[in-house]
């Protein structure tokens, strides 16, 4: 062993002295494995155990990474441990990784590191990297062969000393609806030179609400050809030259590997460093960045995309597991009741007991779990030694080691139960909640930019939690009532973490649970609007999500599909109008706002009139009233107050007719309360000079030939129309 090391050292020394290409080729490949993601996405689990040791299909994640590095021909790996470093080091020391031939694992420990940039600076100081190295984080699953990528990297480096990094990418289409990749990360835009494969642009935080990305025009001027991709997934596997480390040292503000380093290099044209890409096709690579990717990668592993790193191949001392039909993996010593139904794509760990009539599908069950009878487990991840009592229901959740669920407890989709939580009898844990024995730290950093800044080492974290626990109680009551309800049913132990503001809306994006149908419908609606708007100037679509109310959602049933755009416009106008009413905005300003909306949606003034009128009537209905006459009074008041607004859109008779039609429609559908008042309100509108008699008469004439069902309101206002006709005749 010692001799081997010496030889390796001698080889590296030789390589450093003479830059002979042959020597370079012989140099053992090194890798830096960051055993800390420097994010907080896996909290609260990561408060107690580092992310790299979390089981992925019953094997700690880091084993996938190490097994791959070993198979890919890496000779020496430096595992950089930060949060919970002791746990990582202990684990590695007890694992088989320290005793592999031709594969050395060394750990580097540091507690005061808060970002990947700091980690690389520290490694640079230690002067252990002597040649090209693979930079990877400990949560990456891959089975690619490095040889070709490495070869390309070396050849480029020989030709161009500035080619410092090769980034591995893989094709993966983002969802057109949610604008995120299947791994739950944001849609990534890359500009790549199709000939040289040089990376020219990298943007993973594009503003999707805009639907546009901005490219520097120099990019187009300088490069003869450029291809822009949004269907590439960044595998977070980088082959780097040693210069990368010194770059980090030179630029002490580089923290994040992508956000700062990659973007920094792409923008910096003084040094001229270049990043290249290598696309893999047949092999697999993915990084577990959030709960969703945990779910997706687990499923990919079960579906064997990561072969040979699959449960039934013992790639890293995992237990013998047998693959049965329909993708069922079962370890030995399982006690399963005859009536239990274990469905397809399920992994069941060693020594687990399953009671009668329980149903399990698409799930991973760890070792030594006890599952009672009549339990339903769907798409969930149970780690080791979990106890599920009779009649529990789990759908799309993550349950950590040692959790106890008392009889009849229910976990809604997206729930994460951290270590040793106890859920009381028949307690229903609401969707997307995170439950932990530890209280939520008070520092809420929903801001992505700050994410890594507060993720200090585990020990520090712990003390800070304990220290702030008392005072945090007070603060938390104001933030959420849930957080202050430490009981999880009778006998429950643990705290439900409050979901921080703003995060709530985005929670479904990164959760283990699939995106709920209504969210998808909502988003696809918004997207349809977007698509029609691409060519136009736009203003406020970003807040789209909140504006859709339930009553409107049901409207889009039958023939509304084609009219999505106008429906959407109406909602915007309504929101604007309501805000104006609440905040007493001046009529002129409201007109301005509605005008800008109208421009951005490319609507006619008739549409505006309809929408404004619709909002007004809606407001009238919503204003509390006890009788029809009161409602009429309300309506009259609102019309009086806002008549100027309405009139500003009633330039021609067509718009007035539009209003009547709109009103008719409302009476029929959304606001049936108006239907008895139709004629009277028509009268009010006439009185206020909003509608001219011509419009009303034209409307009546048009309706003449309509179906009987359509004529209800014409008939109701027959008298009024008659009166109008007579009046006009008199005038003549």
């Amino acid at each position, binding site marked *: 062993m010692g001799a081997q090391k010496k030889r390796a050292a001698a080889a590296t020394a030789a390589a450093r002295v003479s830059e002979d290409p042959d020597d370079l080729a012989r140099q053992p490949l090194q890798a830096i494995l960051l055993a800390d993601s420097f994010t907080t996405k896996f909290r609260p689990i990561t408060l107690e155990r580092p992310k790299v040791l979390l089981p992925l299909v019953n094997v700690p994640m880091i084993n996938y990474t190490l*097994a791959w590095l070993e*198979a890919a021909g890496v000779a020496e790996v430096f595992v950089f441990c930060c949060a919970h470093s002791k746990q990582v080091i202990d684990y590695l020391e007890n694992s088989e990784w320290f*005793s*592999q*031939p031709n594969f050395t694992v060394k750990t580097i420990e540091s507690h005061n590191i808060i970002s990947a940039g700091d980690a690389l600076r520290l490694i640079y100081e230690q002067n252990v990297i002597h040649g090209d190295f693979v930079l990877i984080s400990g949560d990456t699953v891959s*089975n690619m062969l490095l040889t070709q990528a490495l070869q390309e990297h070396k050849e480029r480096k020989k030709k161009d000393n500035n080619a410092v990094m090769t980034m591995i990418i*893989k*094709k*993966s*289409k983002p*969802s057109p*609806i*949610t604008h*995120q990749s*299947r791994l*739950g990360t944001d849609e990534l835009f890359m500009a790549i030179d199709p000939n040289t494969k040089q990376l020219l642009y990298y943007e993973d935080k594009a503003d999707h609400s805009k639907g546009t990305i901005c490219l520097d025009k120099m990019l187009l001027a300088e490069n003869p050809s450029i291809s822009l991709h949004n*269907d590439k997934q960044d595998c977070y596997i980088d082959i780097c030259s040693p210069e990368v480390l010194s770059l980090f040292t030179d630029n002490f503000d580089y923290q994040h590997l992508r956000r700062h380093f990659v973007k920094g290099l792409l923008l910096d044209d003084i040094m001229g460093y270049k990043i290249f890409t290598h696309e893999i*096709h*047949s*092999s*697999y690579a993915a990084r577990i960045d959030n709960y*969703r990717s945990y*779910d*997706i990668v687990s*499923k*990919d592993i079960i*579906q*064997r*995309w*990561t*072969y*040979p790193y699959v449960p039934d*191949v*013992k*790639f890293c001392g995992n237990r*013998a597991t047998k*693959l049965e039909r329909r*993708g069922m993996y079962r370890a030995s010593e399982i006690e399963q009741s005859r009536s239990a139904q274990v469905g*397809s*794509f399920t992994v069941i760990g060693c020594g687990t007991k399953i009671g009668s009539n329980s149903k399990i*599908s*698409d799930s991973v069950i760890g070792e030594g779990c006890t599952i009672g009878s009549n339990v339903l487990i*769907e*798409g969930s991840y149970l780690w080791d030694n979990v106890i599920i009592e009779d009649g529990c229901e789990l759908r*799309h959740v993550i349950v950590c080691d040692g959790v106890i669920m008392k009889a009849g407890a229910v976990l809604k989709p997206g729930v994460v139960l951290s270590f040793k939580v106890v859920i009381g009898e028949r307690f229903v844990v609401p969707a997307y909640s995170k439950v932990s024995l530890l209280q939520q730290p008070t520092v809420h950093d929903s801001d992505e930019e700050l994410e890594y800044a507060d993720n200090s080492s585990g020990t520090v974290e712990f003390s800070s939690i304990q220290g702030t626990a008392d005072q945090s109680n007070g603060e938390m009551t104001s933030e959420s009532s849930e957080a202050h309800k430490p009981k999880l049913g009778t006998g429950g132990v643990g705290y439900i973490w409050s979901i921080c503001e703003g995060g709530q809306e985005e929670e479904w994006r990164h959760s283990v*649970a*699939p*995106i709920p149908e209504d969210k*998808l419908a909502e988003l696809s609606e918004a997207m349809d609007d977007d698509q029609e708007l691409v060519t136009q100037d736009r203003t406020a679509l970003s807040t789209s999500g909140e504006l859709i109310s339930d009553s409107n959602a049901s409207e889009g049933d039958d023939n509304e599909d084609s009219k999505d755009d106008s429906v959407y416009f109406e909602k915007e106008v309504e929101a604007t109008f309501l805000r104006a009413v609440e905040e007493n905005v001046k009529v002129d300003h409201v007109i301005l706002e509605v005008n800008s909306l109208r421009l951005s949606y490319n609507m006619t003034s008739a549409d505006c009139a309809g929408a404004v009128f619709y909002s007004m009537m809606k407001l009238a209905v919503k204003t509390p009233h006890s009788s029809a006459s009161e409602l009429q009074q309300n309506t009259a008041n609102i019309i009086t107050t806002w008549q100027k607004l309405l009139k500003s859109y009633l330039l021609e008779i067509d718009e007035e007719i539009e209003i009547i039609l709109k009103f008719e429609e409302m009476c029929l559908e959304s606001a049936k309360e108006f239907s008895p008042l139709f004629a009277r309100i028509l009268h009010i509108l006439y009185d206020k000079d909003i509608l001219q008699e011509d419009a009303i008469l034209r409307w009546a004439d048009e309706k003449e030939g309509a179906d009987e069902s359509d004529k209800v309101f014409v008939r109701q206002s027959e008298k009024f129309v008659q009166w109008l006709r007579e009046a006009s005749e008199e005038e003549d």
Partner: protein
Amino acid sequence: MPDTQALVNDFLNKLKKRKIEGSQATARQTAELLRSVISQQRVPYTNQAGALIDAVKAIGEQLIAANPVELAVGNIVRRVLHIIREEDLSLTTAAIGGLNLSAVSDDENDDDRDGDSTLSAAAVAAAARSTLRPPSLQTLLEDTPVSAAVPQTSSSGGDSEGKSKSADKSSRSRKLKHDVIEAVNELIQDIVTCHEQIAEQAVEHIHQNEVILTLGSSRTVLEFLFAAKEKKRSFRVFVAEGAPRYQGHLLAKELVARGLQTTLITDSAVFAMISRVNMVIVGAHAVMANGGVIAPVGMNLVALAAQKHAVPFVVLAGSHKLCPLYPHNPEVLLNELRSPSELLDFGEFSDCMDFGSGSGSPLLHVVNPAFDYVPPKLVSLFITDAGGHNPSYMYRLIADYYSADDLVVQRRATAGN
């Protein structure tokens, strides 16, 4: 000892991570590993064979568990165990019984049973003759040890020497080890040369102007066809490409490089082409004791097509592929499900596998099994390095190579250790 342990671990790793491809390579490396295990093993004065058997079993069990799909590992472990037993038996008979040479040469073909050193050789020999089985069919027919399998020839060499030093116990132990290693060497030699030995028989089977169909790529088939070509036979080859790994493409390339008239077809076209074919010649992953074949996926389809058109279906298999197990046990009929990426491009289908929407359960399942099971009734002929055999004869051939004790007992015995 630590050296062997490191070797074993290294090999175990390779097996576990599926780094070794092909049964021949696996078989050879297993045999080489076991040879070094035996040579490192310290042997006590009494019951040396027992010690060796235990050592080999202990390691063999690990090896088999490391990649249960690769049956060649188990085959070789069992063959080595058989060799130890045989050598031990022949030594014991020679030492204690003092039998004449002719008697021994008669015995050697029969004795496959455990040679317990405490029993008298005469008793063993008697027991072997009376209870075990009648003399091998081959010996009866040919009546000469010319085509006898390798371990037997080696044992005859071993015991002629063994006789001279029969009294000295310590030298006997060295003798046993030495003999075993010699025999394992021959086994390795056998594995290495199995292609040539099979290929030698090519001319007997491939005739002028015939059309041969094969599926996928097998080194044995390749050599077989080359051998026939070298003997100036002119024939044509249809190569079914062997989806999803398309190794048939490689085979076609090599065949063309050697000047063979080759036609490449898709697997699905096999049925359409089979009526023009005179003989199907394929390789195998393993041959089971009942004459069934575990072969690359798609082979059953070819075999059925061949049966339909009464085309001979010939399987080439080196003797290391003969597995003494019967395929009624599902544990034996293991299949390797490989990565779906061999079938389809992940990127293109990534939207079908977005589990983030809908029910969250995958709607697209991709199954990529590596092997097919071809039942014995579809196989016309096996060509091994020991000649051509009927499927129904495979169990006899296997009985020549393996001790009945090692077939099933192995796991239980080692679990006890």
